[in-house]
């Protein structure tokens, strides 16, 4: 048997590990505190509360605990992570090396401009690169996440309309847009108006024309949309919105499909955010830190957050004198360490490399789609972009759900794809392989899913009870959601 035909597996040595409260013993310590030269004094009782129940632990207790827990983890460094909509591409280690350079990592954010020309230059050049990649004119690197970029975009919409002399109350949002879009619009005081996509998964310009009025600030759309399909009529839609005095927000979360291929400005997009933690290979998952830079047309540049990095002659400085700016939306310069990683990635890849990455991401997704559509139901059978969306329709006779198939994938050593999103596909199974995976690995993944489909017919209970080979079996998600346990036990 060749190495590649064996299952990737999740077996082997699985550590047991108790909670730290059960591991600690009174009197253990992880550090030696130097003798004090200040006499001990009693604390005023009024300042005291209930003591916090922390266990006493030695250094090795803590190191082993977290190292062992990390063995239960699964990341893109351990295997394929086809989590649709999340672009879990490999994060090259050179990015980490650049970000750890002491001159960069240790630079204090309050250094005077003349003492941090290198870091300012890095920010300036990253802004310029992102502008070149999107076709837009100006960029703010401050937003710390995709949804934060969306909020910044909505604040810019709001500030621009105010500057035009009349505020508007509504925003159009297609049902194939990212789920955070309505929340970002609502947070900015806009009422989200949903637009249904058509039977091809596309946004119909006629519907936009019907809904777009003088009380609507604009539209927020995701392109490619959450079905992994390219909104072909985006220029027509943008023209309709602009004709009524509205703006077009592009959610760039799916930009990994189109780097160097589309020009957002020529598509009619006025504001676009990028997820550096997706498209530009900065670490992603576990809740952050992320970066969601916002790119805008020159008309909207005055409204970008301050401070702005500007170049004057041969030097760089921070400029906060922008009276129309929406203000500061993050302390200092956003998540600077993440920006360094993205800058490193862009320089490493170059223009041709980024374009090739997008092409391969699209090719990989289409390859998976074509190789599986005879066994998994494909609701929108047409060329996709960077991800493809199947459903569990073919497995309904066996009463096997998307969740069962996703859980079974864990047994074969894969992180499951995104499930039950987008909402417009019932029982969605959304696969985004990214450009990271080579054909051998894609073939193995495809063969695995075909095996799972066969198991669904022949041994459905195997799927219903999956996963079998993990440290814990099927978790009770319902109980966890109804009665979440958010605190540790006391040592007792």
């Amino acid at each position, binding site marked *: 048997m060749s190495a590649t035909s064996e299952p990737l597996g999740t077996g082997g040595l699985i550590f047991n590990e108790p909670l730290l409260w059960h591991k600690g013993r009174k009197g253990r310590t992880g550090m030696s505190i130097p003798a004090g030269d200040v006499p001990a004094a009693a604390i005023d009782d009024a300042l005291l509360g209930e003591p916090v129940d922390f266990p006493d632990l030695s250094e090795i207790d803590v190191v082993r605990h977290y190292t062992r827990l990390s063995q239960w983890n699964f990341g893109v460094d351990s295997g394929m992570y086809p989590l649709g909509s999340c672009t879990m591409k490999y994060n090259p280690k050179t990015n980490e090396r650049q970000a750890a350079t002491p001159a960069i990592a240790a630079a204090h954010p309050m250094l005077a401009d003349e003492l941090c020309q290198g870091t300012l230059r890095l920010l300036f050049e990253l802004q310029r690169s992102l502008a070149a990649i999107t076709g837009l004119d100006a960029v703010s690197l401050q937003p710390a996440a995709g949804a934060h970029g969306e909020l910044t975009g909505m604040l810019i919409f709001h500030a621009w309309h105010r500057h035009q002399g009349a505020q508007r109350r509504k925003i159009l949002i297609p049902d194939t847009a990212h789920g955070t879009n309505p929340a970002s619009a609502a947070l900015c005081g806009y009422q989200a108006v949903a637009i249904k996509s058509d039977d091809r998964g596309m946004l119909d310009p006629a519907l936009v024309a019907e809904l777009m009025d003088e009380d609507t600030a604009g539209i927020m759309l995701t392109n490619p949309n959450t079905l992994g399909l390219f909104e072909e009529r985006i220029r027509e839609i943008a023209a309709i919105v602009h004709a009524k005095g509205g703006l077009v927000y592009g959610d760039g979360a799916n930009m990994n499909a189109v780097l160097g291929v589309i020009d957002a400005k020529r598509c009619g997009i006025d504001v676009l955010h990028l997820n550096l933690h997706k498209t530009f290979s900065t670490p992603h998952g576990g809740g952050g830190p992320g970066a969601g830079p916002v790119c805008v047309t020159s008309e909207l540049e005055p409204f970008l957050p301050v401070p702005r990095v500007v170049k004057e002659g041969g030097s760089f400085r921070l400029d906060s004198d922008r009276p129309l700016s929406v203000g500061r939306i993050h302390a200092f310069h956003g998540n600077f360490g993440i920006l360094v990683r993205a800058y490193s990635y862009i320089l490493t890849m170059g223009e041709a490399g980024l374009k090739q990455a997008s092409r391969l991401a699209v090719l990989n997704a289409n390859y998976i789609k074509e190789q599986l559509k005879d066994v998994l139901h494909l609701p929108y059978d047409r060329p996709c972009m960077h991800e493809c969306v199947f459903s569990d329709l073919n497995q309904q006779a066996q009463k096997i759900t998307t969740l069962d198939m996703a859980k079974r994938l864990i047994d074969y050593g894969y992180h499951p794809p995104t499930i039950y999103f987008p909402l417009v596909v019932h029982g969605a199974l959304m696969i985004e392989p990214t450009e990271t995976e080579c054909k051998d690995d894609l073939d193995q993944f495809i063969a695995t899913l075909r095996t799972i489909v066969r198991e669904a017919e022949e041994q459905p209970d195997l799927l219903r009870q999956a996963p079998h080979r993990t440290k814990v079996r099927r978790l009770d998600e*319902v109980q966890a959601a109804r009665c979440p346990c958010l605190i540790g036990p006391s040592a007792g």
Partner: protein
Amino acid sequence: MKEIEELKLPDDIRYTDDHEWAKITGDTVLVGVSDYAQDQMGDVVFVELPAIGDTFAKGDEFGTLESVKAVSELYMPMSGEVIAVNTALADSPELINQQPYATWIVEIKPSDPSEYGQLHDAASYLQLLKG
């Protein structure tokens, strides 16, 4: 999940396109979600309810149901004022899965009782589900 034939669709209530049901009780109307809705959503873990006294037009969103799969909006089957909400759902959202028709979510005083007649009866709702 249930086959369409396995769904319970009582005859004494009316249904919406969005899978709510409405039941006349004297001069008020009880509102819940259909067997199909609870089955599609899976285990409901949280119900967001409106306030008593809120008024809505037919089709307005009046609350949300959250399951482990998704969050779904609840839409008014008829226009009216909320006169009661089912407070038992705060601690026992699973009632919606266990007894979808015995578990009302809100009670409303309809502003236009004739809207009831515009809702699907069981036969027409079944046709809708069959597509």
